[in-house]
């Protein structure tokens, strides 16, 4: 079965002052895949997905989503088209309850049973017992899960997760991995992740960014065997040697 392209970026570029955080990146995301984006700190991963989600405008390049050019579309309109982004630095409504946080995502789709769907959205990320709690008072791990839960509740076609497992306990990471797998194939996942166990367990394909450029892209086994990737990122151990 030929892969169907869901999202495509061509020549995507974004600078901060003199620094090219994202430098002429070409990138293709297939429908229904889990695609991991890895690379050292400062490689431009967050900037790159911010361009995809519309939080940032590119200096040059083009983004197509589901066949249509979305390069100039504002972020909220892209979300409405099905591109959801969960923040690397947790961004929730700290002063509102867990239920209100999730309801704000759930109610983006017409529903007659907002309370019920909200409760299910909470249960999905293991926050079923925390609905009435003020979100800002949750533990850090639970706030991360709430952030992910809000992204899921949008029922996106593309879910972009920016270092979702950061700050999660091992058991929570297991739950997270299972949860992401359960989203397929309706949801395509673009995952920025430092935990290589999570990447290897989940990813169908991996793209490596370094200094704003694509260093390599391919199946996990190819990436693992790639010498340039090992030098730049995987600690310089040459597995093939």
């Amino acid at each position: 079965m030929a892969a169907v392209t869901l999202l495509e970026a061509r020549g995507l570029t974004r600078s901060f002052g003199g620094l090219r955080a994202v430098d002429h990146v070409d990138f293709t995301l297939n429908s229904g895949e889990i695609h991991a984006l890895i690379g050292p700190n400062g490689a431009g991963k967050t900037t790159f997905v911010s361009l995809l989600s519309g939080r940032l405008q590119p200096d040059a390049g083009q983004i197509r989503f589901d066949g249509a050019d979305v390069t100039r579309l504002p972020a909220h309109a892209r979300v409405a088209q099905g591109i959801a982004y969960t923040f690397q630095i947790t961004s929730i409504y700290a002063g509102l309850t867990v239920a209100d946080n999730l309801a704000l995502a759930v109610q983006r789709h017409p529903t007659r049973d907002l309370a019920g769907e909200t409760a299910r959205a909470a249960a999905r990320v293991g926050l079923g017992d925390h609905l009435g709690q003020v979100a800002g008072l949750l533990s850090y791990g639970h706030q991360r899960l709430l952030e992910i839960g809000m992204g899921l509740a949008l029922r996106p076609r593309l879910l972009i997760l920016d270092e979702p497992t950061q700050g999660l306990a091992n058991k929570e990471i297991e739950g997270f991995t299972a949860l992401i797998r359960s989203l397929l194939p309706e949801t395509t996942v673009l995952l920025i992740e430092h935990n290589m166990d999570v990447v290897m367990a989940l990813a169908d394909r991996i793209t490596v960014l370094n200094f704003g450029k694509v260093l390599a892209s391919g199946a996990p086994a190819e990436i693992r065997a790639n010498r340039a990737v090992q030098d730049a990122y995987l600690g310089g151990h040459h597995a093939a040697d």
Partner: protein
Amino acid sequence: MTRVLVLHLAVLAGLAALGAVLPAYHHGMMARILMLAVYAIGYNIAFGYTGLLSLGHAMFLGAGMMAAGLWVQQGGSAAAALGLGALAGLGAATLTGVLALRTAGVSFMIVTLMFAQAFYLTLLYFGAITGGDEGFPLPAAGRQLMGLDLSQDGPRYAVALAIFAVALLVQLALVRSRFGRTLVAMRENEERSRMLGYNPFTTKLAALAISGLFSGVAGAGYGLLFGYVGASFATIQYSILPMLYVLLGGAGTTLGPLLGAVLMFYLIDTASSLTELSLAVIGAALLFLVLFAPKGILGTLRDRGIRWLP
């Protein structure tokens, strides 16, 4: 929900009972306060719930009042004047919002302030029509609403209470709706809201427009109930007052605007009978609130345990 509804209906019943027992002087005061509370409810929707700190609401109040006044002066009916006031407030707020919402924070305050000031000066410039600073009295014939003579104490209080009741209950329904939740979300974390697919500009514009509609109704009601309209209601002082009411009663609480309006009105009334410096009293009250009680009375109560207070 029932607990909340009972509380609001009890407050309205209490106000109705008050109408029956109050001496004439306080009777008129309370009718005035109820109109100012409607105005404050409008301000609360923009500031308290959506986080839009406007310094230009006097324009919406003044537009509603002037539209109603001119209409009645030309022989129009009081009922239509109320509707016209609502439209004028809505229109003025929408226009202001389209331009001012390109900015945020301090710039938004300054732009709204300048809009209101320009409106006030325009009212003065067309003094031949608007009566300028002096304003003009409304003809008795135009102050009849559904068979009630608004120049009489009893009917005036009843109509003031009816308008207030509608405003209070509409506000309650609004803030407990899905749309109300998105307003609060915009106040709490605009970037998160944007990334949930909410358009910040249109959401805030809608909030401001609704806020302007309430303000316009309040202005029209005030003019009709007290038989006088004038540009003095479009001055900066009338932009600050609803902020004070809301801050005192509790920003982002449904009953805060009423509580704040009652307390602040009597505070300023008492102060101005004792001293010439009623403006200084307003300033001092504002400072005190911002420094020591930023959440106001009901906001503090909500934090201290009455969590269900809407």
